[in-house]
């Protein structure tokens, strides 16, 4: 009944080349971050009208992925599905790393890095969503670590308990992250639906990522894998996609239906580059195509098709995260209803955002750091089973 877990060898040339490349990217990201904070954030693509850009998009993307990974692990931990026991450790490890990546993205985006690790502990504001969330994130990291340890030790009773705690805490974490945006008086931000829709998108992107990671790992390490559990996760993913589309539809229909927000909603749906991301990236590539693939018997039962659908879902949710953060900022608030501003020393109209070279390097650095920690985790810890069967 026991499953044997074995670290990957990690002696191949490819492993060391990958390590070297990732380490170089981490270093480049660290340098870019250091430069931005030495000289000022004018080196980023952000400005007074768009104070949040790529680092926050990446952070919410990671945080979402983290929850989805944990769901895969909870299939065993909470629901007792033994066929997912082989993936529980690697899924929890990934959830842990992704949350750390999210937190790191937020921390490195601050204007004064010298105060980031001091001030939040000295002056906590219980009303601020941005104050509550880092505490949720760091406690989530602690819970995931303890949960992973218990999984590794193999204590069934405590695995069940901690899995439940971790999943409940993940729901809290994601509602909180949605609230950072949903609870702000900006026309395209404020929405009570944002926390639940954030969870839905988190679940779909996270399960999709886990499908890809499990498939890639078992193939690369040449360990046998039964397709059935993966295909079942594919079905689950299809349901998650439908839930996301439902939330997105309700939210946008509501904004369009009410006259007070119709002009802004029109900007969101047909107002520029982000609208292309919405229709093409999020709706077509991120939802319609993968849902069709996963629901159709023929393609839904084929591993390559499911993998392709998973790639599309991850890309679609990335677009969704971009669309949460940016259009709400680039669209100007109506400062004086009945009047439009024709002249000003500051920019008062629609603003565009393009991440700078430094920001891209910084984002790549965090991706590389997660990757580096992941492959070395696989090498040093017993995370991966020798085969994908539960018995």
């Amino acid at each position: 009944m026991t499953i044997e877990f074995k670290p990957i060898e990690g002696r191949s040339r490819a492993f060391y080349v990958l390590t070297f490349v990732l380490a170089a990217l981490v270093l480049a990201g660290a340098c870019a971050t250091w430069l931005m904070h030495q000289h000022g954030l004018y080196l980023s693509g952000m400005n007074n009208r768009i104070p949040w850009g790529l680092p926050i998009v990446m952070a919410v993307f990671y945080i979402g992925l983290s929850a989805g990974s944990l769901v895969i692990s909870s299939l065993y931990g909470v629901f007792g599905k033994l066929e997912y026991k082989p993936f529980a450790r690697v899924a929890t490890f990934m959830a842990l790393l992704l949350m750390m990546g999210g937190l790191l993205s937020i921390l490195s985006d601050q204007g004064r890095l010298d105060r980031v690790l001091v001030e939040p502990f000295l002056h906590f504001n219980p009303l601020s969503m941005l104050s509550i969330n880092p505490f949720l994130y760091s406690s989530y990291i602690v819970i995931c670590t303890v949960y992973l340890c218990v999984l590794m030790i193999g204590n069934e009773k405590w695995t069940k308990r901690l899995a439940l705690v971790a999943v409940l805490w993940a729901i809290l974490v994601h509602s909180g992250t949605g609230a950072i945006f949903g609870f702000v008086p900006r026309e395209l931000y404020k929405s009570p639906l944002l926390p639940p829709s954030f969870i839905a998108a988190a679940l779909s992107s996270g399960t999709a990522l886990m499908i890809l990671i499990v498939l890639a790992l078992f193939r690369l390490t040449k360990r046998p894998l039964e397709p059935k559990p993966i295909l079942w996760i594919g079905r689950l993913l299809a349901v998650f996609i439908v839930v996301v589309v439902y939330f997105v539809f309700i939210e946008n229909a509501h904004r369009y239906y009410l006259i007070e927000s119709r002009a802004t909603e029109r900007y969101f749906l047909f107002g520029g580059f982000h609208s292309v991301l919405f229709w093409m990236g999020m709706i077509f590539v991120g939802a319609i195509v993968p849902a069709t693939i996963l629901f159709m018997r023929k393609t839904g039962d084929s591993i390559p098709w499911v993998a392709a659908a998973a790639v599309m879902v991850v890309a679609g949710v990335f677009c969704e995260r971009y669309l949460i953060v940016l259009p709400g900022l680039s669209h100007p608030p109506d400062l004086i209803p009945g009047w439009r501003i024709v002249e000003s020393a500051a920019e008062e109209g629609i603003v565009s955002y393009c991440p700078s070279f430094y920001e891209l390097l910084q984002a790549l650095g965090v991706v590389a750091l997660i990757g580096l920690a992941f492959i070395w985790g696989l090498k040093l810890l017993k995370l991966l089973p020798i085969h994908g069967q539960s018995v």
Partner: protein
Amino acid sequence: MHRRRFLKASAVLSAGAAGAYALPLLTSFKSSAETTRAPSTKLRWGMVIDLTRCPDNCTACVDACKKENNVNTSGDKLRDIHRIRKVTLESTLSAAPARKSVPLLCNHCDNPPCAVACPIKATTKREDGIVIVDPHRCMGCRYCMIACPYNARHFNFRENPEQPNPAYPKRQHGVAESCNLCAHLLDQGKRPACVDACANVNAQALTVGDLNDPNSEISTLIRNHPVKRLREDLGTEPKVFYIGL
């Protein structure tokens, strides 16, 4: 045996972590209650801007503000700091639109969304109603800029190399910035730089004063004129009042 010891250790660790988390929580509730208290009967600063007296092409207030508060502008419309800025408005309603020149600044809301958003209470509302950023505490998360519905918040994207007014502290880059009604001058019994400059060019469009004093100049102005505040529908209770908007 191993397992039990491990679980015990992790229980102790998590209890310790919980304690560490609770510590700032305990202290924070007290002070947050202070800032959200109803306006006192004491001093409560506010401003009246009489647009009928504000000349179209005059930027005396803006220039004085930059000088007083060591703000440097380079013409970068997206990254320059504008504690106060003048905008020209055009009506969306009539066929031949009337134009208006309007100074915009921090509204020093009684319910400031920026202070609620600030994760470390670097932005607070003072007892006398002034919303102020502590540049020595702000860590530059920029959530206040996201929360402010008036675009009144700016960010120090770069440092100002010059410091024409040595009396005002120099800000490092990476912190948020907004009008603080020249609190350092008000505290000395002087007028804010913009109000002073406006009076000096004989426009007298700007008036600052105590909203809680029924006999103050500002209270009289508000009583005797129809006044408007920006986006009152948001419930932020701005303390900058416009005559003739």
